[in-house]
């Protein structure tokens, strides 16, 4: 695919504006974009929007499978990225864009051990949860990595999985349905976020839009987590040291803001869910899926198909349900 042609006057407008501290969209040069995060009804789904016009959807899911030979005591974690052709107007299935996003996410969440994979182990060397995050880029206007990282983090923070354990007496795998156990949340060691900058002759532009990204020569990605540690750095253009340090300072402040916002939203979602603490009655187990290990493959496939939403399972009636019922009665 040929790169999009950009008019010379647009080029000089963006470049000249940057030199005078003026940007398209009337933002200041160090002003970050507004983030909006919303969560879906099912567990572990999150949509992040960076205004104007970048929208990424992430869904976390887990299935039971075999851990890798090199890490028998850990679950697995995979991230796959899909960029919708409708967002870009070109075929991007095999191009560099999705793989660049996936690499950034992998570096931040996988290689820096953001997710506690050891807690996903069920039976050493044989059974573990395979965690998977699917990232869909729906709308694209620059800053893909920033938005995708936010969406993935939101998905991981709101994800819940059912309890699974090996029955000590029979050596069988028991998976309790979400309705009769307290769902388990993922344990994250740290919360990473990434901020991007466009570089143009000693000027930093925070979180550029697509046009700025295409026109300005350089790009800098700074990933910082909630304890002010750098977790990702990427650079495509020569930069002075002072400018780099300034960028990390800006990114740090913004990352903390954004992560605090996300944490607040996640807390809200969790309280809305009203998940009961389930206590199993004494005596032999009456319900629950008891599986022999050989039957595992087929059963895990079935489970992922009919993964129900948390709303459907919640035995307590929430305030929103009552509102809905009232509305229905009025109608």
């Amino acid at each position, binding site marked *: 695919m040929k790169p999009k042609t950009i008019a010379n006057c647009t080029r000089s407008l963006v470049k000249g504006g940057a030199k005078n501290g003026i940007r398209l969209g009337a933002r200041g040069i160090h002003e970050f974009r507004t983030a909006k995060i919303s969560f879906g009804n099912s567990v572990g789904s999150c949509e992040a929007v960076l205004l104007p016009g970048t929208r990424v959807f992430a869904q976390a899911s887990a299935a039971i499978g075999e851990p890798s030979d090199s890490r028998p005591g850990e679950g697995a974690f995979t991230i796959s990225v899909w960029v919708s052709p409708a967002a870009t107007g070109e075929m991007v299935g095999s191009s560099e864009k999705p*793989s660049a996003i996936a690499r950034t996410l992998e570096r931040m969440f996988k290689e820096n051990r953001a997710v506690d994979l050891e807690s996903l182990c069920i039976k050493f060397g044989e059974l573990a949860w395979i965690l998977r995050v699917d990232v869909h880029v729906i709308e694209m206007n620059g800053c893909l990595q920033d938005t995708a990282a936010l969406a993935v983090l939101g998905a991981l923070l709101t994800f819940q999985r059912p309890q699974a354990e090996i029955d000590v007496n029979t050596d069988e795998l028991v998976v309790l349905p979400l309705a009769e156990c307290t769902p388990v949340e993922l344990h994250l060691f740290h919360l990473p976020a990434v901020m991007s900058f466009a570089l143009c002759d000693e000027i930093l532009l925070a979180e550029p839009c697509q046009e700025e990204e295409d026109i300005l020569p350089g790009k800098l990605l700074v990933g910082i*987590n909630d304890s*002010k540690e750098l977790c990702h750095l990427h*650079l495509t*253009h020569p930069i002075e040291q002072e400018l780099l340090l300034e960028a990390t300072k800006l990114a740090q402040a913004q990352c903390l803001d954004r992560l605090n916002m996300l944490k607040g939203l996640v807390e809200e979602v969790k309280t809305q869910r009203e998940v009961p603490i389930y206590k199993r009655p004494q005596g032999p187990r009456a319900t629950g899926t008891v599986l022999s290990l050989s039957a595992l493959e087929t059963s895990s496939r079935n489970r992922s198909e009919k993964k129900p939403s948390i709303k459907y399972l919640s035995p307590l009636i929430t305030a929103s349900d009552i509102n809905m019922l009232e509305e229905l009665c009025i109608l």
Partner: protein
Amino acid sequence: MAYRTHLDDLWEQQIRPDGRTPHELRNITCQMGIFHPQASGSASFNIGNTKVMAAVYGPHEVRSSQKKHHNPDKMIINCEYSSATFSSNERKSSTKADRKSMEISSNLRSVMEHIIIPDIFPGSQIDVYVELLQDDGGSYSACINAATLALVDAGIPIRDYAVAITATMSHSVCMVDINAQERGQCAELTIGVLAQSNEIIVLELANLLQNFYLKDVLDEGIKGCAAIYKILEEAVRQKFNKMEQSLV
């Protein structure tokens, strides 16, 4: 519960596990023209046990497969990184198509695009192939150094040398040139600079590094890059002195 080992005793004297001081580089050897005369330019760069080879082919005519999308006023720079199946502890089956290699290839290309004088050979193509033979820490920085040397060997006009090194901060001491053993315990920041202007051109981070320490680690890395640059320049001068003498 952490046990005290002889390494802790050494560290009290600021001696690293392999016996170096914090600011010491590993043993560096580099050689140019290792694929002479098939390749236009080639070089090997060894730092400690990390071994990298690079070959440059071109400038030559643009391959027909890429001709369609090619702007005839521009030059194509093509970079390909691969690592040998036996390069690290775990034997790998595929080494070229995985995401990690693709990322390194595209990063290398962006570095090469910045140091090669743009559009000096319009309508032609330069191929840079980099092969990692053994990985003992700092492989990406070694790749950059090897590729720069190979470009010089091929006689392609470049603006500046791109030199790179790894650095970190551990126990509040800056260290340069991390080996694989140390990489497991601390962050690894790969820093690449343009040797003359001291501008940073490569930044890659593995593991977590306190933002607060970044300045010190950068300073340490830039110092290390200056040392590498001296070694590379020395190698280039030696090689071309020899050529001069053989001509006389």
